[in-house]
């Protein structure tokens, strides 16, 4: 590769590196993506939650109300742990489809599942820790 081509490639990569954090900030603000990861250089910019909780609700075929899953099988726990890790850093961009699909395939009488995640979040106005809640419903179409 000629020096000219190398230089153009390096400059293009540096341009992407320079612009990406701006996109990253937008993702953090719009989708709750963590400022800490994904090369946006936002480490130490926001408090990192120490714990994330999850609850799973399901609706049986023909029913109108959701019920809370009280005892999760081991296979569900492993999937939940993986999904929580994705949610921790990707926020609303963490796709629940795989995890929800696994839940639905394990219980054929379930029509829909709701995965609710909550984590402490620092409220800038009051300086108090509040609980942030995000709800994913699968399948998402009615």
């Amino acid at each position: 590769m000629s020096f000219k081509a190398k230089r153009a490639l390096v400059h293009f990569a540096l341009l992407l590196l320079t612009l990406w954090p701006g996109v990253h900030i937008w993702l953090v603000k719009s989708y709750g993506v963590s400022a800490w990861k994904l090369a946006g250089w936002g480490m130490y910019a926001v408090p990192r939650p120490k714990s994330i909780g999850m609850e799973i609700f399901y609706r049986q075929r023909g029913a109108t109300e959701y019920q809370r899953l009280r005892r999760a099988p081991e296979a569900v726990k492993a999937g939940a742990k993986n999904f929580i890790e994705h949610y921790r850093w990707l926020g609303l961009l963490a796709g629940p489809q795989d995890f929800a699909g696994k839940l639905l395939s394990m219980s054929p009488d379930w029509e829909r599942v709701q995965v609710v995640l909550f984590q402490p979040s620092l409220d800038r106005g009051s300086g108090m820790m509040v609980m942030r809640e995000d709800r994913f419903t699968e399948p998402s179409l009615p």
Partner: protein
Amino acid sequence: MSRTRDGDSQALRSQLHAFQSILALVIMTEYWSRLIQHWHEPDTFLVVSPVVITGLGVTSLTERWRRPAFLGIALVVGSFLAIVFPGGGNHEYLEFLLCLVCAGLDCEVPEERLLLRDSVRWMTGVILFWAGVQKLVHGFYFNGEYLAYSVSRETYASVFSWLLPAGELARLAALDGSAGTGPYVARDWLFSLVSNLTYILEIALAPLLLLRVTRRVALVGVFLLLLGIESAAREMFFFFVQFNMLLLFLDGDLNRRLIGPIAVLLASMLLVRMGVLPEVTFT
């Protein structure tokens, strides 16, 4: 004139070789440290990657195989980032990019070594600038909220003990970060000043670092800032990667003389991980 330029170019070559050696050393130490830390739950990648990276790191010392070795290290680091995605640390992305640059540009070609140095310098400025902007736009530094929240971590508490009244320090240290706790605000002027200066300095020093006339002063400022942040945060691998990048802003090859001391510090970190040296908190 041409002799001087050639001399400068040879100094830069030596400086870049030292930069690459330190980079390889830091990455090697990090992968061994990770293996020691997770020894009780080993997996194939965890065990194999430090061995491979060490082999590649040693190979990178040879002129002929330096660039392929860095391409290899980039592949290992890239694989790690893919495996742990999205949980990889920012410094690991940085290591990946630096290895790619070292693999792509040849230090033996004068114009490529200049491009390599300038690329690393630009990356340093970009990271510093955006780190400050992120703190500014998220707004957790105006009243010291982020730092107040961090006091519950022992390493932060020890650093802030000289900034906060004992009562306030004890109050914040007792908060556990759960919902309903707070307020995570310290109404102390010095604490607020330090909090606000953090992002102001990051944003202001980045362009000053890239300008020739202000470079030296900015370099001292950035080094002190980095030292201040990491004395509390203790992200030592990030510190070494950034410190190594900062050394490329100097004109001479001081970094060559620092390889030994840095290697000793990195080895000490491994000995801490192994429990041979007393425990010190770092990530």
